[in-house]
């Protein structure tokens, strides 16, 4: 799984470069998010702008990470669109995660 990581102040923006987050990559996705937290990141934006499909195992990886982060930090989603946005809405994960239309808005909210 490929990511592009950009640090903006105290915020880590992790842009997912793969087009699909499904069962085959979900464990790797989850472990990468865990690495970010182990490295001390407490404000993380997951940019899904390049992702065209996410299944429930991908959402499961995000939810586990959100739980690991707990109340000590923020894990937010940006740039979800098309069927990815639909997926968050249908599963009501748009109520579980803080979601932003674009990366800048997410960074601004966490800074």
């Amino acid at each position, binding site marked *: 799984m490929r990511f592009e990581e950009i640090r903006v102040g105290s915020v880590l923006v992790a842009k997912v470069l793969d087009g699909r987050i499904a*069962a085959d990559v*979900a464990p790797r996705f989850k472990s990468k998010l865990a690495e970010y937290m182990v490295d001390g990141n407490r404000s993380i934006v997951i940019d899904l702008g390049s992702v065209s*499909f*996410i*299944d*429930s*195992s991908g*959402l*499961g*990886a995000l*939810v*586990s990470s959100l739980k690991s982060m707990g109340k000590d930090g923020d894990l937010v989603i940006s740039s979800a669109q*098309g*069927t990815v946005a*639909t*997926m968050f*809405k*249908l*599963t*009501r*994960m748009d*109520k*579980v995660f803080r979601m932003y239309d674009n990366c800048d808005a997410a960074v601004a909210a966490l800074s």
Partner: protein
Amino acid sequence: MKAMILAAGKGTRVRPITNIVPKPMIPLLGKPLMESIVEHLRNSGFDQIVVNTSHLAPVIQSYFRDGSQFGVQMAYSFEGLLSAGKLEGEAIGSAGGMKRVQEFSGFFDDTFAVLCGDALVNVDFREAVRFHRERGAVATIILRDVPREEVFRYGVVATDENGRISQFQEKPNVDEAISTRINTGIYLFEPSVFEFIPSSRPFDIGGELFPALVAAGAPIFGVELPFEWVDIGSIPDYWEASRQAVSGRIKGYTLPGREVEPGIHVGINVRWNPSRTTVTGPVVIGGSTSIGDGAVIEGPSVIGAGCVIEPGAVVRECILGDYTRVSAIARLDRVLVFGNECIQPTGEHLGIEEAGISWVVDDARRKTELVGHERELYELVREFAD
């Protein structure tokens, strides 16, 4: 009189619905579009209807059979081959489909109608035939005036003051359109039109036959008649048509079931306690559906037959196909569920199985078994999402 319904298209712009049903069989409040067309033809004096079929042909043929249950005689012209146990379509074009029927038996022996199987129409055919015969036309197209910004979707027609067609334009740019009168895909022909259709190659009515008629100086006319025309050319069209239909805004379109409260039509064998749910119309609920206590349904919504709306589920402005299960934690908002797909009004869609969201919405006939992360998500939503 005789008529032909064009039903051989693949309906690519209405996918994923047309992956399961051919376009003419798309249900509007549970009733296939083509059934309304057959009824209107029958009421207009057409008693023999031939249908060309290809994509998912058996779905059409097993529904209409010989037409006797609809008060007409029907037969089919299958365009394709049975190959390795599967039916494979063969594209011969709309005019090519007419020609095949004519060459098979010489079926068309007087003025006949040809129309697409995917638009709901109630055009006054008697008036159209009178116009057609008065003009001595070999072909007459039923026209409709549309707002200029919509012309790019259609074939546009220019006529003289007698209705004689002088020019065609296929899907023009808005700035370049020669008129705002469009071809509705409803035609009257004389059998002499077959002189203009070649036998041996695919041939299209709009793109090839009509330009050939104009070029040959043949009498081809257009008439604009007032009528209801609900074209299901795309998912957004279907979304809008369903909402119009359930709201009672399609003139002459009967809502199914019994109206138990204003705007709420319910089929038979429905399990539902109105005092323990919140249902606000306009809503149509199909037969053998169950609506659990605490569920909320807001119109305009269409709930198909055999659906299960679990206790506490919320369905806002949705079109649910037959046998849709909406889980207790679901809050469906402006979505269309059809054949294992969640479809947005814009046409974007998500496969329920592929996305692993059967814990939100599923086929009611399937035993839903949640795997690890699905159960986790389900429990999370149940705890936190409200």
